[in-house]
């Protein structure tokens, strides 16, 4: 009764404080959901390949810079336990060089270079409109990319000043794949002046083979290469950690702003209600009861603000994804929502702690004299 009425007394201030927390929590949820979504997309992509291992150039900071020579690919094929090697190339094409660019949200097109008829291409058969590509002048395009570029099966898409016939439109639950295209590796090799080298190799192992033995066999002979389990891909590349750090730094700033909002609200509330606090103490309220009253007000702001933040965070992330350039995805977990809510509660608690302590220390005599 008292808690709610005290907060409703200064509705605008309470609302602003509540929004401060909500925005802080919303930014944590939204940024984390997008960052996790990105990692989850990569994990899904790796699992979707069906390969157990991936070989990349150890020195490359990111997979798009990786180069593996023809000789190294031939060597990998001879390693005991390897059933099949699918070499691949990978590049990202700027959206501005594509047709219909003004209408599109496609800021970039992920280009996957593959060998026609290879095992790695087989997965696109499921649900494809048209057929798999077979020649250098043919391509398959993801459904999202096709929609954004306003092209369809049978159309021609010009890339690198070369026309490619769209022979298949595929679907994928991996957003950056759905917003990408697949064509012959030789095209990418030519355009990026890669010669006969490839970017990475997907390895399919024979049944019962320990991937670590394969890794050791490859890395001991080809010191330039790193052989990793496809499940560990997101952990292997350090730059993905930067995303996490960026997310948490931005979130932390938002959270601090939210916490200061609660602190300010509760300090003002205590200052304005000094005389009332004096009255409560005079009629027998203990310091602890006054402390709990102010803390409860802070916590109520944080509970409502936290719930609002969870809603705004999920709604905001989805809106962001909807309007953002193609390729981004979101992923939520119960733990992320719990974390967001716990952070909101902490903000309310710690934001109100000092004002509550200050209120509880007020001398009833002095407080009653307060004008």
């Amino acid at each position, binding site marked *: 009764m008292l808690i709610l009425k005290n907060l409703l007394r200064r509705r605008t201030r309470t609302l602003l404080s509540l929004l401060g927390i909500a925005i802080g929590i919303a930014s944590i949820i939204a940024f984390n959901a997008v960052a996790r979504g990105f990692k989850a997309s990569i994990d899904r992509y790796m699992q979707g390949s069906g390969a157990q291992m991936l070989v990349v150039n150890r020195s490359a900071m990111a997979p798009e810079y990786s180069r593996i020579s023809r000789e190294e690919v031939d060597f990998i094929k001879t390693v005991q336990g390897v059933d099949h090697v699918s070499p691949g190339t990978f590049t990202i094409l700027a959206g501005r060089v594509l047709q219909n660019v003004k209408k599109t949200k496609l800021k970039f097109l992920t280009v996957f270079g593959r060998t026609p008829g290879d095992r790695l291409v087989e997965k696109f058969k499921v649900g494809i409109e048209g057929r798999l590509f077979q020649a250098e002048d043919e391509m398959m395009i993801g459904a999202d990319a096709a929609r954004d570029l306003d092209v369809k099966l049978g159309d021609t898409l010009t890339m690198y000043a070369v026309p490619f016939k769209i022979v298949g439109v595929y679907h994928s639950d991996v957003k950056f794949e759905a917003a990408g295209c697949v064509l012959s590796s030789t095209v990418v090799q030519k355009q990026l002046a890669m010669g006969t080298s490839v970017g990475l190799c997907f390895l399919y192992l024979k049944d019962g083979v320990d991937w670590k033995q394969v890794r050791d066999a490859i890395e001991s002979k080809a010191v330039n290469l790193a052989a990793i389990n496809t499940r560990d891909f997101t952990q292997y590349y350090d730059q993905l950690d930067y995303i996490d750090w960026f997310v948490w730094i931005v979130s932390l700033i938002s959270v601090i702003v939210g916490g200061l909002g609660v602190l300010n609200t509760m300090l003002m509330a205590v200052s304005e209600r000094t005389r009332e606090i004096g009255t409560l103490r005079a*009629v027998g309220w203990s310091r602890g009861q006054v402390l709990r009253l102010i803390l409860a007000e802070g916590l109520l702001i944080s509970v409502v603000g936290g719930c609002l933040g969870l809603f705004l965070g999920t709604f905001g992330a989805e809106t962001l994804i909807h309007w953002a350039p193609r390729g981004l995805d979101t992923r939520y977990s119960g733990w992320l929502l719990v974390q967001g809510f716990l952070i909101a509660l902490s903000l309310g608690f710690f934001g109100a702690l000092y004002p509550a302590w200050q209120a509880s220390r007020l001398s009833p005599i002095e407080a009653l004299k307060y004008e």
Partner: protein
Amino acid sequence: MNDVTIRTIDLVKRYPGADITALAGVSIDVARGQFFCIMGPSGSGKSTFLNMIGALDTPTSGDVILNGRPLSQERNLDAVRAKEVGFIFQLHNLLPTLTSIENVEIPMMALGVPRRERRQRAIELLGSVGLSHRLDSIATRLSGGERQRVSIARALANRPAVILGDEPTGDVDSKTGEQIMACIHEARKQSGATLVVVTHNPDIAKGADRTLHMKDGVLQ
């Protein structure tokens, strides 16, 4: 001893920083159920004295024995205030966002009285001060006299042994002041509480069982 509700023993209050002696050794007994009035000019120390016997402030030396309990030995003065004392302030000091009932419930919340019991008691008390028709009115919408009557009901909430009034009619006109004092007397009669009032107003003192004057921290 049982007939004495308030006993002060050589009560002294000094404010060292300001070099002021607000009370200079006050010793007095107030009998149970008595209406005791203290008059005196501003700054004479009468409010300080009231705060001492109401466990709101502690003396520099001396002691207050309230309802048989020496306050110097009490570890929890909050509980003493909640159980033994009912305050009526000059400016009523109601919580502005709360209704009459809620304001009367406040002291009972200090003692953890269950909600239903609190509400029932508050309704009874407000009825006894003639405010049955203002139970759910927000404090700021009440007249000065009505506010003070709510504060009388609040003072009686925990059935205190002592009711302390600090200029209880100081903020209302004389006619309303008479009504308020009548209300306080009726409440005292029904509760059997001891009433101590500090005031400038000689009309209030007329109805007192005992009146003393205070000057420079000394009762005369």
